[in-house]
């Protein structure tokens, strides 16, 4: 059963007469994971802050359905009531570095008014859940980046919120830690917590999100299930991924001569967006042979969210 949880209606947000968000309509269902993606400065964090009730919209409404049958309430006007149901994890660490892991959890738990027994229980299970049990007496500032992120997440979950809002939860983390954090988020979601994540690690979001909202220059360009978002961009958007070795620069120079619309240097690989798949692939193989370059790996795949995002940006720029 699909149950509305938060509803954004024609939301406009202005800062100093600049429209950061333009007529955003969005519905967050209970129990889902919503990923908000967009370029830097696109308005992701602003949208997240609106959902958290931290800022109020200039125009439109952000509504919150406290209970299934209840009438929606305006988020920022009822924030004092809703706060107990929200867990917010900003981009940066948001705990006290000079308190231990356990102290941080107990401190925030008490501020949420949890009874001692429940608090200890919650803290214990969170410490185990986030694998911080062995570090509970360490000062938070002495934790590694991944552990700090897990502590942050724990602090947001200590009061068992209904809505968990995460701003760039995997930023500055290595791939393994990113994976661990994503797993944690999925686990949290499985426990019934609605999760809203803003991240620029689109591949990560692709993995865990039920829905994606793509924001570009303050406009909601696409919103829906990941496949639904990707669908309009599938046609003519098969990518050629080339894993390159030491000849990357030569490969890029060579690729520029091929019939491709776009070349994306992703560091460990080059992604080509061919104008015509077959012709481009043949020309590539021919050129590799002629130039005597070493091709480590090559494959054709569907465009990732990253590339979908790229396409949206391109389309906007062409307009």
């Amino acid at each position: 059963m699909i149950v509305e949880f938060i509803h954004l209606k024609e939301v406009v947000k202005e800062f100093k007469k600049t429209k950061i968000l333009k007529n955003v309509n969005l519905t967050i269902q209970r129990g889902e994971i919503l990923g908000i993606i967009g370029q830097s400065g696109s308005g992701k964090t602003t949208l997240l802050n609106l959902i958290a009730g931290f800022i109020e919209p200039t125009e439109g409404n952000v509504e919150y359905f406290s209970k299934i049958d209840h009438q929606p309430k305006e988020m920022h006007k009822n924030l004092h009531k809703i706060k107990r149901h929200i867990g917010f994890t900003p981009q940066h660490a948001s705990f006290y570095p000079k308190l231990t892991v356990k102290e941080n959890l107990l401190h925030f738990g008490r501020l949420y008014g949890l009874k001692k027994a429940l608090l200890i229980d919650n803290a214990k299970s969170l410490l185990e859940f986030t694998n911080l049990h062995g570090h509970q007496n360490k000062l938070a500032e002495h934790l590694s980046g991944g552990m700090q992120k897990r502590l942050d997440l724990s602090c947001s979950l200590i009061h068992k919120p209904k809505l968990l809002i995460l701003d760039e939860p995997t930023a500055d983390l290595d791939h393994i830690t990113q994976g661990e954090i994503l797993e944690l988020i999925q686990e949290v979601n499985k426990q019934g917590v609605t999760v809203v994540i803003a991240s620029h690690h689109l591949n990560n979001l692709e993995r865990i999100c039920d829905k994606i909202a793509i924001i570009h220059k303050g406009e909601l360009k696409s919103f829906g299930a990941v496949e639904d978002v990707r669908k309009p961009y599938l046609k003519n958007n098969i990518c050629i991924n080339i894993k390159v070795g030491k000849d990357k620069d030569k490969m890029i120079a060579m690729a520029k001569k091929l019939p491709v619309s776009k070349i994306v240097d992703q560091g460990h690989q080059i992604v080509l967006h061919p104008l015509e798949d077959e012709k481009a692939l043949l020309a590539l193989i021919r050129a590799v042979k002629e130039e005597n370059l070493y091709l480590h790996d090559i494959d054709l795949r569907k465009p990732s969210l990253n590339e979908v995002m790229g396409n949206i940006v391109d389309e906007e720029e062409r307009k």
Partner: protein
Amino acid sequence: MSSLWLLTKKNLKLLLRSKSSALIVVFAPLLIILILGLSFSNSSQYGINIGVHASSFNADVNSFMETLQEEEFKVIKYESSIEDCIEDIKLSYVHTCISLPESFQIEGNAKKEITFYIDPSKINLVWMVQETLRTKLNLKSEEVSKALAGNILTKLVDTNTKIGTEKDKLSTIKGKTGSALSSAEAAKTDLSGLDFTVPVTVYNLSVTEAFKTQVSANINTGITKLDAASSAINGANLSSSEKSAIKKHLTLAKSELANASARLTVDSEGSFIAVSNLINTLETDLTATKGKLTSASEKVTGTTDNLGNIQSSLSEGMSSLDTVLTSLNEIKANLDAQKVTEAGVISNPITTKIENVIPAQSYLSYMFPALIVLVIMFSSLLLGTTLVMMEKNSPSFVRNYFVPVKKVTFILSTYLTNLILMIVQIVIILGISLIFLKELYMTIPQTVLILFLAASVFTFLGMALGYLFVSEETAVLASISLGSVFLFFSGLILPLESVSVLLREVTFFNPFVLAEKLVREVSLFQTSLSLIWMDLLILLGYAIVMFLVILIIESLLHKQLVTKFMRHHHHKHRQKQKIDGKKH
């Protein structure tokens, strides 16, 4: 309430775990008060170095230097020139230089000049040095004045004595002159009483001739009669014997008449001629006497006139003597009326005597109120600012926005944290102070109450600055500046008497001044709180007003601060992303 205590506990933990904060904010003031306690717990003179220059270091100069040394000043001799001493002032080796005259003996009307050289830039010392040395020099000056006044007084006393003596002589002269005047008066009266009137009768000497003639005629008649009688007797019927007896007597009478007639005509002794001659002689003598009397009368008149002159001269003399005597009496009365006869009193009629209204104590006792309030002020201001900035800059600032705790609880927790630390500090400071200032023991509760109010005011001020400023550095600087302003306008560094009247009146409301005044009154004079309730009320009022101001600032700025905080982190994150992107 539990949230308040929870937040307070957290603040304390954070503050104590942050080594630098704990050191600076918590332990530094305690260390300061301990050092100050050890430094100023004495009552000896300030360690002032004085350079003395004189053209020759004779007994007078050395005596003056000894006076300074007795006062525990360190005296340094500059024999060559005063310039060396002035150079040493500039290098801070000495605090002041004194150029002394060769001698302090006053001769003639020439004054002796003593020149001070001071460094006015050392304003904290200048007044003290000037004042202390002026006192010493005044003593020396007083000594010289005393000698001079003594000399004058001795001469005045001598004059008085001589006036006393001479006044008696003048009185004697006056007495004698009075007597002379009386004598002259009497003489004049006597002389005036003399009658030198000459009878103006004209003596007709022909009377004597007529008398002679008449008497002669009468005698002749008598003789005739006698003859007739004798004849008649003869014819009378008488016995012869009887007739003879009568005739005998008649004959005798006739003889006698004949003798009388002879006396009128014969110049002999007892004769009429002799009498006439005598009368003529008498007349001559009378005329001569009359002339002499006239002459004497004239002389007496002249003498009387002279006596009148003498009398008026003597009167004038008497009057002059009276005037002189009156003047002398006045002079003497004036001299006698000069009650101040002590040279010391004349040379220094008003002596300044400074009586302590409290028993003499160590410098720390006097400095204690200012010191403790100073420590409390800076600690509270800095701690208030630091705690607010610590919260504002804490990574959990955003998370705190989402916790269901009222913002006023956060403010109160900051205040409570500060207060707990301040109470700890007050307890330790007072504890340490009791080692040096035992007399404080009686006034501890009142002192603690005042310090508690002062700490509240300064904490709220520090917190307000914390909320108003963005960076910790500027907020701390603002706190220090505010504390310095309070300190500067408290009269502790510079005398408030040098500032304008308006500003002086305003400074009375300076919380530092108020708190310091209250602590001084309570700790030094044991003033009852009921007498200083107004000042306590002002302090309390400040605390309440500042708390309300913080509430307003917080309600206006909090959301803005959180937004700014998030935006700041967002930008940082974005920049990091860009850098990472470029690297890849």
